[in-house]
């Protein structure tokens, strides 16, 4: 499954499904592929930042710049793996890990005050006992965020 213009074979679908740990059904993967090809207008096999930003709903989102760093240039398999955190079947730790990655803008496995830019957040962190030099790891995030109210799910339209 090289370029996006080639059609998806059953083998490809199963391969992608295995890579995302069966978090999407085969029908959903086909729909995602159609969407991928729709966004990848020049059929390069990946979606460029420009093409993501041509979706107005995405471009006005406050997190778009951070997300762009994570999704720019992904091929279809990695695109599905990225979106699998939003499947209703994904585990809470997996979703929280994605939130952690969004915050960890320098990819060093730690979220420092440099990564979190909102001033309000810095203030509250200090109130909760974190100094300016402290950092959070994934497990800290899991402990803070893991609660039943956390809902991060997206529905893939299957026609």
């Amino acid at each position: 499954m090289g370029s996006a213009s080639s059609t998806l074979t059953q083998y490809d679908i199963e391969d992608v499904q295995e890579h995302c740990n069966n978090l999407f059904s085969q029908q959903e993967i086909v729909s995602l592929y159609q969407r991928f090809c729709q966004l990848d207008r020049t059929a390069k096999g990946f979606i460029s930042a420009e093409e993501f930003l041509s979706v107005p709903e995405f471009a006005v989102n406050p997190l778009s710049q951070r997300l762009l760093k994570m999704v720019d240039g992904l091929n279809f398999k990695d695109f599905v793996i990225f979106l699998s955190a939003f499947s209703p079947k994904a585990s809470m730790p997996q979703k929280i890990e994605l939130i952690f990655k969004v915050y960890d803008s320098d990819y060093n496995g730690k979220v420092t005050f440099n990564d979190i830019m909102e001033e309000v957040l810095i203030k509250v962190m200090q109130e909760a006992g974190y100094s300016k030099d402290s950092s959070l790891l994934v497990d800290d995030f899991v402990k803070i965020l893991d609660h039943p109210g956390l809902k991060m799910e997206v529905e893939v339209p299957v026609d």
Partner: protein
Amino acid sequence: MSKLTSSSSELDLDRPNIEDYLPPDSIPQPHAKLRLRDLLDISPTLTEAAGAIVDDSFTRCFKSNPPEPWNWNIYLFPLWCLGVVVRYGILFPGRVLVLTIGWIIFLSCYIPVHLLLTGHDKLRKRLERALVELICSFFVASWTGVVKYHGPRPCARPKQVFVANHTSMIDFIVLEQMTAFAVIMQKHPGWVGLLQSTILDSLGCIWFNRSEAKDREIVARKLREHVEGSDNNPLLIFPEGTCVNNQFTVMFKKGAFELGSTVCPIAIKYNKIFVDAFWNSKKQSFTTHLLQLMTSWAVVCDVWYLEPQNMKPGETAIEFAERVRDIISVRAGLKKVPWDGYLKYSRPSPKHRERKQQSFAESVLHRLEEK
């Protein structure tokens, strides 16, 4: 306060013991932890972004609908082949012939009228109008267009404009064969541009250029002048500003609604069974689009001339535009989408993003204050 062992193997002295901040039921210290959770929890915004990646209402407006594939078996396949032969071999040449005859008649009448009757403006305009209606009828015939018009035919009165939803440039031709409108259009290159600068110009059409920033004021002025003129052709405006795929409507631009005149809505709906009339200007040139129409079976559509609307007291131009968009969408069975059609050509302005960021920050602060 019990100190639980940390699950991380890394010994980081900077790191405060998070367990201290978890809400153990006995310890009354929920505030700091709840605040931290609310602030770090970006899941709603993240979900919105992922939702936009997976499916967004804007891209849906411009999706061409591929024709349903026939179930190819031993019986249908030859029928389909026969259909192709008929369409390309019999219908198409016939249509080209009809169109050529139409152009010959049109040009042989139009050129003399235009050049010789320069003194008698009223008569010349009337003849030119009739001739444009004629050539449009020839165009419609060349696609075997079956157009059903509902409602009272438009008449030329001062202080009124006509607005319609936009699917393709053929919208203009379909409407023009009934009434010679003056339309406001994007200036195109090629043979279409030539037609625009010669024939359509004489109808009083107005041109704009999307890419020029100052253009909007100039166009607004021209619109106002046209509407106020007494013997100008009735003005037709497509307020969506771009072609949309006849299943949705994008936001109407307010320019047509702040001229202080009556707005007469027109709804156009094409029957997709025969052909998908959506012109995806990014994918096809107009010539290719016309050829595609001329090799299909027919173009079937409905045109509804709806009740004229006036701005209600206390209504803004944008509210007026939305109200008319509602009327047209309901009549033609189209879904409304809250996006500006020009986003097809450019990205949302930084203003939009800042607005969203502001409401995001405000909701975070609000949650803080609630605790």
